[in-house]
């Protein structure tokens, strides 16, 4: 009696485990993503036995890293600390950049947007250390590309110098003077309205220094070097 009862219990337990195993496997198969072409319904049941099961290359899609725009901000204060020049640069996916240039008071008030510009990936805009005029009336920035270096002078309020031009192009004015020398570097302001810049001569050696007079938009040859 005990043995018979024991056997029945074992059989019942085996049936129960078989049922549980079937439920578990069915659940797993239903919830496991199989490679395409390897489908229980299609591959094993509907395909003829002699037909080779096509094995497709597994291609786990690797998501491309999402582009995150980087914004950098550089600030240059005037000599007396009362004004700030702020340059925001935001990178784009193709390597190009958007620059926004502002002036504002040291307390963050009186913000003037000077420009917002898109430039290609090989062009950079920077604020030199001595950008501000001693009067805080003007400032200059440097724009560099593989083919040229441009110094552009702006009014601190952003008002245009002429109806056509918002800025004065120092390097262009110097080219038009046809001195035979090439622009090298603008160092800063030698006085009220006077930007000092250095040049290279035709032998690519150190050339003379010049002043660019902002109010008169004239180029003045200096007798001494401002290195």
């Amino acid at each position, binding site marked *: 009696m005990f043995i018979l009862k024991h056997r029945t219990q074992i059989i019942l337990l085996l049936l129960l485990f078989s049922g549980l195993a079937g439920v578990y496997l069915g659940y797993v198969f239903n919830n496991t993503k199989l490679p395409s072409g390897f489908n229980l319904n299609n591959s094993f049941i509907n395909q003829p036995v002699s037909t080779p099961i096509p094995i497709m290359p597994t291609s786990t899609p690797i998501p491309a890293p999402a582009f995150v725009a980087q914004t950098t901000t550089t600030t240059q204060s005037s*000599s007396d600390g009362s004004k700030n020049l702020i340059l925001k640069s935001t990178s784009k996916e193709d390597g190009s950049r958007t620059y926004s240039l502002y002036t504002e008071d040291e307390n963050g008030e009186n913000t003037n947007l000077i420009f917002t510009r898109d430039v290609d990936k090989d062009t950079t805009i920077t604020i030199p250390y001595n950008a501000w005029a001693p009067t805080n009336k003007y400032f200059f920035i440097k724009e560099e590309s593989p083919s040229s270096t441009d110094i552009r002078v702006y009014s601190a309020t952003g008002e245009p110098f002429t109806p056509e031009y918002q800025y004065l192009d120092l390097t262009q004015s110097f080219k038009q003077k046809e001195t035979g020398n090439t622009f090298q570097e603008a*160092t*800063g302001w030698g006085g009220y309205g006077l930007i000092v810049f250095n040049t290279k001569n035709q032998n690519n050696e150190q050339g003379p220094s010049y002043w660019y007079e902002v109010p008169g938009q004239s180029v003045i040859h200096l007798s001494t070097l401002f290195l």
Partner: protein
Amino acid sequence: MNFLQLLVACISVFFVAFIATNTLLPAKPTCANSISCLNDVSEKIENNAVGVFGGKEVLPPKIDLAADMSSQKVLGESDPENNSNSDKKKHIYVDLSTQKFYAYEGDQLYFETYTSTGRWGKTPTGNFNIWTKLRSTRMSGGSGADYYNLPNVPYTMYFYGDFGIHGAYWHNNFGHTMSHGCVNLRIVDAKKVFEWADGPSLGKKGTPVSVCDQFIAPDNCIQENPVK
């Protein structure tokens, strides 16, 4: 003693006196500002005056001593923006080769910036101490096209005769020589140094100033012909 002997004796005495004077007595500093150096190196606030630099009129910054006083920290009050450790020895170094200015506390760099030293007159190399601090003074000198007369020169710290560290409001070409021998700083930088550095007090000398042909490190300031 005949005339010839007398003449030889006079010439000998003259040369001995000349050589002794030049070698034994300390050299008197030459002037940075050829006019104001001789007249006056005192504190002056001239808010309505107009200056001259490079043949052009320049407007000095207005100085408001009352505002200065109100913005000063109470003694002992903590200032989170000022990381000065006043227990350490302060020392200023000026590098003529790179046009850089350094303020050290012991071997810790407290402040670094660009400066403009002598273009029209050499900034003397040597080891000095700030002998007076003036919130504002007038500096004048030069002649012809080089004539300048600048009131309200802010945050002046003289260290050798009238050679001083001070703010410059008439140019913004720091990192390049621009002065008649002084050590020019941006006004904001001069203010910071002025508030940090010490003048002489209670028998103590002011903050040391070393002008170097080339500055390497606090104990390595190369001076080829120091005047002091």
